[in-house]
């Protein structure tokens, strides 16, 4: 269990109308599923707030980064958000065991998720705003779970202090 401390434990996709289209928890955490649903719902509100304030910032610029960073503080987890220009939202939840900023790494995961989502969305048989059942998309998310675990063991090999 120590190995999973910094790994991604949950990935979620939220529609522009704020309905969860996909929520997947890493296998070792499956019993905790309900807790993650609750976290994701709270996260949606925070994301909405962040993206609604676009255009009222300095110089009235409409430019907004997709990556929103950590959304709100939590004891056990770090909750990261990402919103596309079409208002589709992604949430990545990791365990909260380091104060080191992991923004670059998490942003890479979001980019992969965004690409996987776009590919999935282009399936002519996928009805927009419905539950995501694509096996290909599942595999991309599995890759993210695995990548985040292996990144951790690499850090341990290099003797990084966490």
């Amino acid at each position, binding site marked *: 269990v120590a190995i999973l401390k910094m790994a991604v434990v949950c990935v979620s996709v939220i529609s522009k109308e704020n309905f969860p289209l996909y929520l997947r928890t890493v296998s070792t955490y499956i019993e905790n599923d309900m807790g993650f649903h609750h976290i994701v719902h709270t996260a949606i509100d925070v994301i909405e707030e962040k993206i609604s304030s676009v255009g009222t910032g300095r110089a009235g610029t409409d430019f907004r980064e997709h990556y929103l960073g950590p959304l709100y503080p939590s004891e056990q987890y770090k909750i990261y958000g990402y919103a596309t220009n079409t208002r589709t939202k992604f949430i990545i939840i990791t365990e909260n065991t380091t104060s080191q900023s992991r923004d670059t790494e998490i942003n890479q995961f979001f980019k992969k998720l965004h690409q996987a989502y776009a*590919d*999935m969305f*282009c*399936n*002519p*048989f*996928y009805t927009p705003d419905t539950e995501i059942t*694509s*096996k*290909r998309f599942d595999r991309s998310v599995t890759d993210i779970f695995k990548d985040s675990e292996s990144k951790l063991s690499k850090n341990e090999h290099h003797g990084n202090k966490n």
Partner: protein
Amino acid sequence: MSRQYVGRSQSDRKVSVSGELFALTYGALVAQLVKDYETDDEINKQLNKMGYNIGIRLIEDFLARFPDIGRCYDLKSTADILAKQGFKTFLGIVPLVANWNAKGDEFSLILEYNPLCDFVELSEDHPNLLYSNIICGVLRGALEMVQLDVDVWFVQDTLKGDDTTEIRLKLNKRLEDAVPAGED
């Protein structure tokens, strides 16, 4: 990854269409057919019919574009030209010609990659849908215009989980008289 298709408009300008747009357009077509028709068989038939109407036109364009392609003396040359020039020109891929039967009137085209299927994942509601069946119609229509009566069908499909996509073509007979201009 953006694939480019170069076509020719009437004024001889080269027009480039992105591979994604092509795949999405075809996808929209199939999705609409799926909504409009009840059974997979019906949908497959419609795709074949559409393909036929495309094929009879495509062959004219092809032959005009490559005037040095003469008459083929046997099916093997036809197969070669189909794969190396036909598919290459219009889909940007060169399928492998293989699995000839003993009589030499039947062969397969093996496609490692099918640009029509980018992004596609079949749903379980349509187990018998032949997503790329339009290709079979195109081949049938095109060859009919050069006096070859053929049957074309899918043997394997990567969309269904097979390793490759394999289309089989069988020559029924050579047509002697004038062929009909099109179907329906």
